[in-house]
């Protein structure tokens, strides 16, 4: 440290490191954004522009690719995906919310072991259950039904829902509940009138998370359905032989809800993922 640095103007090195820093951050961001932007542009590119080696960035845009993809069956598949994802959210919340609440609010024998079990199950490669499930589903008439896929997706999502909702409930101060007890509510009323409204933003984010999880899942959906494909399964089995720009339209439809939901739940994203994978 030379004396001149103290109190005087920052040395050149300071500015250089600032620029370097900004550069690296910029590169990191464009590394993520560029492929998304490019694939979205290509999804709306006319085939001519796409095939032309000169148009690095397409200049003519059309909705024809999306329309064609939807005509090909993606419309139905998208609908199926939404139905499956919604059913998954509903099922996994009906089952997972009480469990999450129990882990957040009660001290009971075996709690730690049960929680570790859930943490362990979260790591289980759920896709492997799809293969043997086919046999069961054929017997139950669930094969190739959206309900069947949703049930399998619920298995995948449930440990996450339990852990996330549990941590959301923990974040609602217990004294707020106790105050309600004291002032005359029973446990159910307290849950409905105090805990739930306070946890609602977090739970909404968790529901979005679950939705996206189901929306994105491809292996189980592809194995468990034949005609009632969800969107990713449809893309994997039917759209792969289609021209490239149709594939890009498919990827655009797939990431669109994800991007919207990221935006809505952006504040929660890191903490939520932190919980689910820590």
């Amino acid at each position, binding site marked *: 440290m030379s004396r001149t640095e103290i109190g005087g103007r920052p040395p050149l090195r300071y500015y250089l490191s600032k620029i370097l*820093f*900004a550069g690296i*951050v910029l590169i990191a*961001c464009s590394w*993520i954004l*560029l*492929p998304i932007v*490019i694939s979205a542009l290509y999804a709306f590119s006319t085939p001519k522009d*796409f095939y032309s*080696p*000169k148009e*690095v960035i397409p200049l003519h845009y059309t909705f024809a690719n999306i329309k064609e993809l939807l005509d090909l069956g993606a419309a139905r598949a998208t609908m199926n995906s939404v139905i499956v994802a919604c059913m998954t959210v509903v099922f996994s919340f009906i089952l*997972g919310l009480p*469990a999450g*609440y*129990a*882990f957040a609010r*009660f001290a*009971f024998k075996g709690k730690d072991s*049960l929680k570790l*079990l*859930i943490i362990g199950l979260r*790591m*289980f*490669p*759920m*896709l*492997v*259950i*799809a*293969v*043997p*499930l086919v*046999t*069961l589903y054929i017997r139950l008439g669930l094969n190739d039904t959206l309900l069947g896929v949703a*049930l*399998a997706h*619920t*298995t995948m999502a*449930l*440990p996450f829902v339990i852990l996330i909702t549990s941590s959301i409930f923990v974040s609602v101060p217990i004294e707020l509940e106790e105050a309600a007890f004291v002032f005359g509510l029973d446990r159910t009323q307290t849950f409905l009138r105090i805990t739930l409204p306070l946890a609602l933003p977090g739970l909404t984010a968790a529901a979005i998370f679950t939705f996206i999880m189901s929306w*994105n*899942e*491809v*292996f189980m959906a*592809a*194995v468990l359905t034949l005609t009632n494909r969800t969107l*990713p399964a449809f893309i994997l089995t039917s759209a792969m032989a289609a021209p490239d720009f149709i*594939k890009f339209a498919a*990827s655009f439809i*797939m*990431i669109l809800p*994800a*991007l919207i939901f*990221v935006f809505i739940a952006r504040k929660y*994203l*890191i903490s939520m*993922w*932190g919980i689910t994978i*820590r």
Partner: protein
Amino acid sequence: MNSSDQNRKSFSIIERYLPYFLIAPALSYLLFFIGYPLTQGIILAFTDSRGHFTLAHINYLLYSPQSLFYAALKNTLMLAAVIIPIQVMIALGLSLLLSSSFVGRDLALYIVIIPLTISDVAGGLIWYSMLSTNGFFNKFLMAAGLIHSPIHFFGYQYRAMEFLAIVLAEVWRATAIVFVIIFAGLQMISREYIEAAEVFGASTWVKLRHIIFPMLKPSLQSALLIRTLFAFQVFGVVMVLAGRDIPVLAGEAYYEQTELYHYGVAALYAIIIAAISVIIGYIYIKMFKAQYIREVGAG
């Protein structure tokens, strides 16, 4: 006091068993939907169509010229070995970068974690749009005059390039998961530790090497383990970018199940993936348990 005793009894049954009542539905659902398929999978793997015990599926898996088991295992391991270190390094770098405060940090943070919500299939397609012969990469290089004919990233004859494409797509898509773990770990290190080191004149490298890395070790470990677990389930990206050119375990399970109708063999793949994951998961749980107990003890 009779009524008091009665009160006490009814109270304790509800209150004592309430948590179990709340957890039971979820837990039994999970146990059924994991336990039943696993049992069924083992039965499928070791019986023929008439229900008799057979080793035919194992023999097919290991010895049939049609089976790509060894290649699948090798590719899965190789993908993990290549992808994971890159991801951890990038994630570590990004975490250190983004843990300092600057204008637009929140925006940068959101951008970096966007891939978390992008599925493997979509991720594969996005990278297909970058790398296909008419994709951005080739067109860009050709427009810039750097190459004259497109670089092929796809096709059985370009498996090395396919492998590279998969690596790129997976690094792009799944680094965010590693990033979140490490970033969260970094956030938990009190700034005071680092500032203390600064006050005592530690250089950046010394801070990294002697303060941050040791304290980040648990996060790094769990990031590594989780990524390894996920690596054995890699499927969508590979299917989209390489089809069966680069067989992987989950892909083979899918292929044997839906294309060849070899349910027993598919079940074997499922069991193998499950077994590997359980072993890794066991290590993880042991580690986590130690950490959990430390945290609870400390708190």
